[in-house]
């Protein structure tokens, strides 16, 4: 059998609007966090998902202020554009920002810097994060992870209880029925909260578009020094150990996700507006073949690493 190419009129048109119920759901979740926990924080990376979460928090408590502080675990290898964006947003919102550095965890001897060609601080972040949770006594950490990102996440709860070691036990997950959220925990435990669990990448972009949210410039097409490795486009930087045959060159690229420079690959793109980005994502999803497939693979790999580190 061959996969058929049948299609209906429903599928021939591509949708580009945001389902508002997702926003209502996320606002409901954030209000539950504020009510059920004493010291919640938003894990803020400066990426599109955490920018979306911050916007939702703004909406949930307006005209009151966001009752959460922001926590950024800084690998020291971030894109400078992301950091300046972060600082500007924090100033506008008037929320408290805590930054904790992987560099410090390394100095304290708690983690060891990786070596070699693929050296990255991404996996080291977890230790810094857990230390920060303990230091600030955060009982709930709100993250922008989504269930469509990968299969294991598809099963994680909206309120995901972690033990003293930050571990997620798939077997011990609490059933979540209707929209009732149970955030009861013992001292020392904490909960990871995922208010945009039910959003897809496209939902996030449509939301950013409809809300006219600012995002860091590296999401848009720009000129950058890059080099090729394993079929991916890497941003050239001092943090990455290049081999002799990896020659940097100038290219027109953008980033689909924003993480640590050592684990975020660029995609060749001329998309310089949100509309064009959305078009690009849609095209990538329905395209028959092409260079984008490799881009997608690299993105999936990146997101996975991000999850191991951050969530």
């Amino acid at each position, binding site marked *: 059998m061959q996969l058929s190419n049948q299609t209906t009129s429903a599928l021939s048109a591509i949708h580009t609007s945001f389902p508002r*119920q997702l926003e209502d759901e996320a*606002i409901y979740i954030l209000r*539950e966090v504020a009510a059920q926990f004493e010291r919640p924080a938003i894990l803020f990376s400066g990426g599109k998902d955490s920018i979306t979460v911050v916007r939702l928090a703004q909406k949930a408590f307006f005209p009151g202020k966001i009752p959460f502080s922001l926590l950024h675990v800084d690998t020291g290898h971030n894109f400078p554009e992301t950091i300046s964006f972060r600082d500007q947003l924090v100033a506008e919102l008037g929320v408290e920002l805590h930054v904790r550095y992987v560099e410090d965890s390394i100095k304290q001897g708690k983690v060891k810097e990786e070596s070699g060609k693929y050296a990255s601080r991404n996996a080291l972040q977890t230790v810094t994060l857990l230390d920060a949770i303990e230091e600030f006594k955060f009982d709930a950490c709100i993250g922008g992870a989504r269930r469509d990102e990968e299969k294991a996440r*598809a099963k994680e709860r909206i309120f995901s209880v972690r033990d003293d070691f930050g571990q997620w036990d798939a077997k011990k997950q609490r059933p979540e029925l209707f929209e009732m959220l149970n955030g009861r925990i013992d001292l020392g435990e904490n909960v990871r909260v995922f208010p945009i669990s*039910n959003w897809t990448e496209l939902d996030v972009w449509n939301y950013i578009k409809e809300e006219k949210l600012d995002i860091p410039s590296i999401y848009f097409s720009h000129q950058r020094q890059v080099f090729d490795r394993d079929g991916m486009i890497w941003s050239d930087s001092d943090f990455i150990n290049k081999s002799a045959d990896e020659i940097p060159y100038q290219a027109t690229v953008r980033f689909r996700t924003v993480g640590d420079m050592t684990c975020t690959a660029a995609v060749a793109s001329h998309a310089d507006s949100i509309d064009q980005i959305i078009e690009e994502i849609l095209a990538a999803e329905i395209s028959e073949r092409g260079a984008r497939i490799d881009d997608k693979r690299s993105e999936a790999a990146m997101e996975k690493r991000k999850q191991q580190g951050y969530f």
Partner: protein
Amino acid sequence: MDILRIATAGSVDDGKSTLIGRLLYETKSITQDKIEALEAASKRKGLDFVDLSLLTDGLIAEREQGITIDVAHIYFNTARRKYIIADTPGHIEYTRNMVTGASNAQVSIILVDARLGLSEQTKRHFYIAQLLRIPEVILAVNKMDLVGYDPIVFETIVQDFHTTCQQIGFDGQNVHFIPLSSLYGENMVVKSEKMPWYSGDSLLDILESLPPQGDLYADKPARLGIQSVIRPKSEAYHDYRGYAGRISSGQFFPGDRVIALPSGQESAIDRIEKFGEPLDRARIGDSVVVTLTDDIDISRGNMLIKKEEQSPLQAKVVTAEVCWLDHQPLTVGKTYALQHGVNRQKSKVISLKSLLEMPSLIRKEDPNQLMLNEIGQVEIKLGSPIFADVYASNPRNGAFILIDEQTNSTVGVGFVEAH
């Protein structure tokens, strides 16, 4: 654009993974690289077709490792709406997972293997759809290719369903019957040429035509559980006092006379806001902030209702059908935290009246305990009243969860029957 939430349940053998894979494929929700990977994996397995069930492969691997996976969420879009499938593959903790996955669903897809006809599982699945008052049920008779697309096979199953299951259903529930081959895509997206005798729509067309959730409970009495009171105390909003929450059922308009529970104090809605913007109405699912014309006593867990509408009963004893979700059985005399919406109260199980035996659906009186996956009628005493409706009359305000105060786990879900 709205969202339609679907619940599916069943074992691997009935073609559920293939059905979900097919829906994703036909709606172009799978990227090309994944399709190529599927083609390669299918070839490796020596198959002469593309095995779409491999899309949910991760789930199978986990099952092999003996991990309880309960509910997985799968997403796809059409031009009309966004779909969320809550897929509950667990056959070990079947009832628990089905109830959890189906709790937010408007549609339940019940798969039947055309060769085998109705099974105990079909009946159980349909019973849960009834218990949860899921308005739309699709009985999908799958694997029609293996019975030569024979209309008699399909008709026999439909008749069988009418005799054995129909009496379980409730008024207002729509049951759709559809013959399918998810493996070959027959009747999935377009009507099958192999089954010209079938007069209904394709599966996707049925899903596309179902009413949005907002229309379903709009005529129910309006209920707004208060999540928090917003008091900015800033210069611009010095005396501002807004009540934040998500509408569970019905609709509110500015000017509505409202009553706050439990105080019974009366006021009127001044404004309904979202991010400062005034709304001319709020309806089920909307997360809003409501301001009132009077300063009255309202705090988290309280509820706003409309004066002219029927109020929920505020009794300190409720009778409910409870589905038990925990390995530790329900114990009569034990206290649990009971959470109804955003209102949490102390509670105590006074008695366990009956237990529903599966699959016979016969009630056993005065059972000793309620174990994992069992459903029973329970009488519960509350420390302070909750503001619930009878589940059957207003599902969005008629359910609660029970929380074990020692383990903090969610151990049971209840459907209010009477006060």
